[in-house]
């Protein structure tokens, strides 16, 4: 199972096409959608595609190693699974499936605060390897309780996402009246009925709910109040002052996710953060935003020695991962591709996607003549 690879889907776009056939439209639209006109979603792709690498063939070369060391642990590949909320809506048990495949393949899986799985169960499934992504809980008691639970469950790394000061204005979700669990409108019911495998698995897995946050929600909270509740309690705007108490309470490695401005990276270093994820949240928050691959080079040159630099948004292949690493990232994350994988192939989807990306990346590094991930910047064609 661990080495599962289905030759019918050698590219992420193949998985995407298959997943779209198996996931109800409203859920797939949530996964795909960006903010407003979805310009930044497109820009993420085109900017990554523009990065060029140059191979070096005549120097002696043995083989490529994908391993990367981060915060005292050596991971088997330089990419991880980015936090994605409401995964269970897109495919039942997706967080469990992905956490397990990531752990088995020894790459990090980052659990979202608004996941359908509880943080305790994911800690168990991932054998303590998963990371935890936190939104800023404005309610002090919730913040404290959550941090205690995260520690207790043994998460090694805490990721705090700061690029969601507003609810992204996503036209498709607004049209669909997206909710978790899904609203039983006629339209949604028809969409679900059109996807029998999703329907069957969902029935067996049960209604998707935000398991981690459930203890803090009043029972049976009507859907129309939930968004307001979330805004008020667990997803508030966070600035550097808001990060300080978290830094004080969390002694382990702390990663700030969602930065793109070098100024913010500097503040994060001053805060004492251990890593930053250069990201525009997959184009879901600021439609006029730059794609992170652009500022990445500058940020990496300046701060790589002070802090671990991660990057996500728009990566869809081994080539893209190599481009990002060559542009100076220490490590990368991918969001949607793994959900495509699970949507397309169910339980095996996690393994398949990880294996595909590893095979692609290995081919590129071999082709470049690059033996270590950290050497990739040497192969970048600078503009």
């Amino acid at each position: 199972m661990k080495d599962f690879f289905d030759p019918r889907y050698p590219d992420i776009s193949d998985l995407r096409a298959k997943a779209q056939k198996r996931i109800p439209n409203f859920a797939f639209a949530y996964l795909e959608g960006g903010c407003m006109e979805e310009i930044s979603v497109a820009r993420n792709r085109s900017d990554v595609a523009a990065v060029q690498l140059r191979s070096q063939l005549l120097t002696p070369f043995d083989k490529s190693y994908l391993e990367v060391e981060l915060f005292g642990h050596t991971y088997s590949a330089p990419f991880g699974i980015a936090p994605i909320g409401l995964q269970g809506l897109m495919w039942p048990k997706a967080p469990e499936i992905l956490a397990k495949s990531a752990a088995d393949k020894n790459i990090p899986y980052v659990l979202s605060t608004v996941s359908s799985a509880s943080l305790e169960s994911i800690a168990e499934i991932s054998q303590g390897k998963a990371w935890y992504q936190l939104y800023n809980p404005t309610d002090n008691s919730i913040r404290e309780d959550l941090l205690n639970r995260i520690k207790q469950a043994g998460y090694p790394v805490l990721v705090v996402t700061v690029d969601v000061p507003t609810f992204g204005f996503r036209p498709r979700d607004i049209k669909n009246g997206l909710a978790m669990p899904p609203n039983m409108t006629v339209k949604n019911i028809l969409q679900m009925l059109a996807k029998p495998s999703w329907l069957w698995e969902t029935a067996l897995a049960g209604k998707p709910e935000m398991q981690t946050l459930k203890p803090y929600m009043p029972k049976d909270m009507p859907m129309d109040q939930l968004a307001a509740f979330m805004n008020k309690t667990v997803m508030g705007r966070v600035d550097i002052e808001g990060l300080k108490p978290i830094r004080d309470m969390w002694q382990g490695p702390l990663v700030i996710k969602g930065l793109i401005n070098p100024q913010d990276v500097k503040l994060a270093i001053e805060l004492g953060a251990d890593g930053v994820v250069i990201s525009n949240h997959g184009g879901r928050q600021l439609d006029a935003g730059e794609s992170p691959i652009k500022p990445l080079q500058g940020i990496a040159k300046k701060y790589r020695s002070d802090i671990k630099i991660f990057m996500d948004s728009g990566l869809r292949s081994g080539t893209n991962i190599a481009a990002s690493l060559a542009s100076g990232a220490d490590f990368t994350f991918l969001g949607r591709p793994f959900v495509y994988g699970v949507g397309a192939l169910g339980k095996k989807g996690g393994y398949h996607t990880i294996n595909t990306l590893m095979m692609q990346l290995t081919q590129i590094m071999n082709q470049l003549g690059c033996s270590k991930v950290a050497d990739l910047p040497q192969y970048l064609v600078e503009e």
Partner: protein
Amino acid sequence: MVENAVLHSIDFYVIGIYVFLLLAIGLFVSMRQAKNASLFVGDKSVGFASIGMSIWGTNIGPSFLIASFGAAYSSGMLIANFEWFAWIFLLILGMVFTPFYLKSNVTTIPQIIKRRFGDGMYRLLSIYSLITIVIIWLGSGLYVGGLLFSQFTGWELWQSVLLLLIIATSFTIVGGLAAVIATDAFQTVLMIVGMAALTLIGLYEVGGIDGLMAKAPAEYWRLIDFDSESVPWMSFVLGYPIMGVWFWCTDQTIVQRVFASKDVPTAQKGILLAAVLKILPPFIFILPGIIFYVLQPGIENTDGAFIAMVSEYMPIGFRGLMIAVLMAALISTLDSGLNSFSTIFTLDIYQPMIKKGKELSGKEVRLIGRIVTLAASALAFVWALAMEGMATNLFEIFQTLIAFLAPPLTTLFLVGLLWKRVTTAGATYGFVLGCITCMTVGICSINGQTFGLFEQWPHFLNLTFILFIVTSAITIGISLVTKHSADEEFLPKFKDVANTDSSQNKSIWRGWLILAIVMVGLYAGFEYLARNAGNTSDIPSSLSTELSSSPSTGSSTKKTASHSEPLTTNTDGLGLPEVNVYRGETPTFDGFIDQNEYQDATMLTGIENWNPQFSAVSDPKDLSGTVWIKHDGEYLYFAFDIVDNLMYGVDTPRWLPQENPNAHELTREGFPWFGDGVEVLINAKNSFSQEDGELNKGNGHSWQMVVSTHKSRLGGVGVAGLLEGEERSMLSAWNNYQKWILNKDMEAKVRIKPDSKGYTVEWRIRPDPCLEISPGEFWSADMPVTKMGLNLAVADLDNENEGAGNWGNFWHENWWSGERDKRTWLKQWGTMVLHGKTQPISTQDI
């Protein structure tokens, strides 16, 4: 038709499509069959699949559906034994009785008896068969089905019964058995699909297989329970076979499908299919009952459990599907009953007794058959309506009825047909005395009449066994002292009719063998579950194999709970308010609060200082006021005098909050509390089962209703008045609330003050049905002092920007009791102490 909140127009389309398909199939088959085909056995060309599905569909009627769902709700899988033992008797029907039946070339069960025991027995049995058909197949199902249909649609019972009868009778009259069998097959598929959908949606709601296993009581999986009160195992093993032989092997309605088959192997394959399908009911009729118990325990009248689950958990469209399923269950039973009634009457009563045995022409048979079908249908109509006035626990009675109908006939067939020594006299006396004994015992035990002879009647399963022994003893005893009469004839030997060595026969036996292994496996599997449930890793689920190591079990969940404790407790020290309420003069119910009108009521002031859910009130001009509470023995009254300097929709233009563009609507998506208004929340039961987070039930036990100044259920948008509050997201609550408003069980009158700087509300509540202190018991003034949970809220909406940031753009919403965000939890409400008497005048007042 009354305004219908349970059913959406899509539901009606679904029902309409079902009825259309049903009639289309029925009529198509009728047209296609040969002109001279028999109404009673078709043209003997029915395929095995139709036979199997028709047996299954005929067997499952609405009372079975409701009763087994209810039994599963109250005690789990035990009731499944009645399903999972049926295959043994289908095996006997197929492999023992069918060859006899088909080789004897008869069309009715009484005709078999005629061959063996002569005319006397024949007449007895014909009449007995007609009576049982009316009781078991026509009346009960029709009454129950009609009742359910009425509950959904709001029609009168007679209208529902009539409609269902017309549908069932139409194609039965035109097409006879062939149409019945074809439509049964369609309806069987529909029932399986519909019930599977209910099961899957239930599973979804309960948290999937893992959730069900974790939450369902382990003993609910037990199939074999020696100490059970509902299905004690030993009694079941003794009693069920008596009922099983009668029902599956000798009842005309089931067996008529066998008579209609082309040959023995076709019939046998059909019966085998029915037996295989019998695996399903526990999974799709009983499992959802267990699931619903987990979702919503505490329903006392389990007969209502099915309806409750459908109306609360089935989404739009699926409710219509479930009604179609109920209709299918009924119609597939009813049409079969009508047809067999007509068969027996025409062939066994009309021809031999009225026509004195003269041959009837095919045309004549069809004519008489149709007239009788119509007559039977009229009889069923009368009988179903007559039942309305009879006993209340009908479902239970129908279940036990078979126990008392079965023994005489089972004896007659088992002893009489299989043993040559039985004489006509023995069979007749055994049958007649058996019927009399069974009827007497049946009536007495159903009424619980013991004449002081013993403490209580044994379980009906024991009784049926004892009655069988008694009847057999009479039959055998009398046979031994009498001689065979002249018109007796011996039926062929078994080995002469069953061609045991054909290859077809072998493959059918192989089918039975596989089925037997599956059934044993099922019993073993459930026994294992009953011993190990609660342990998710043992569940045979497609998902658990990989993930069994696994989520949300055991220690980790407990850890979570204890962690979050500090957040959710600590309400005890809150100091919840309490108010005494007394009897007073009846006020003029007009919305105006006159001087002295409420001087004998209890007054609550300081609304501006109540607990703010949103921003606090800084200026009493903005929001303040007084509430009075009293009762006059007939109604409980709340009067509000609210000061509010800016009235939404009166002083301001109407605007809508960003979060809900439908906020102003009167639908379930609309916000009742949107706008200026007041809310009353009462927990008449004054209890809650959960420490925290429990919300009201939306019925007489606990509820929340809203009076808005700018819209109302009765007046529409723009007219102040009562609205349905939470949990209106729960369909049952929404329906209850709406009913209360429409029935004027709760009324409110609102007056905007002339200077539009506030408003007054008079609100009266009828204790029955709104203050239900325990199931079926409503508060009244002659009760001792009674405590109820109470909460009150006053909302103030001003300009759109002032409430920015909260989901309803509220400026203020102040609550009499409870912490912010938790004020709708039952535990957070204050207490209303209701006194039947007027307020005692304390010495201080004088």
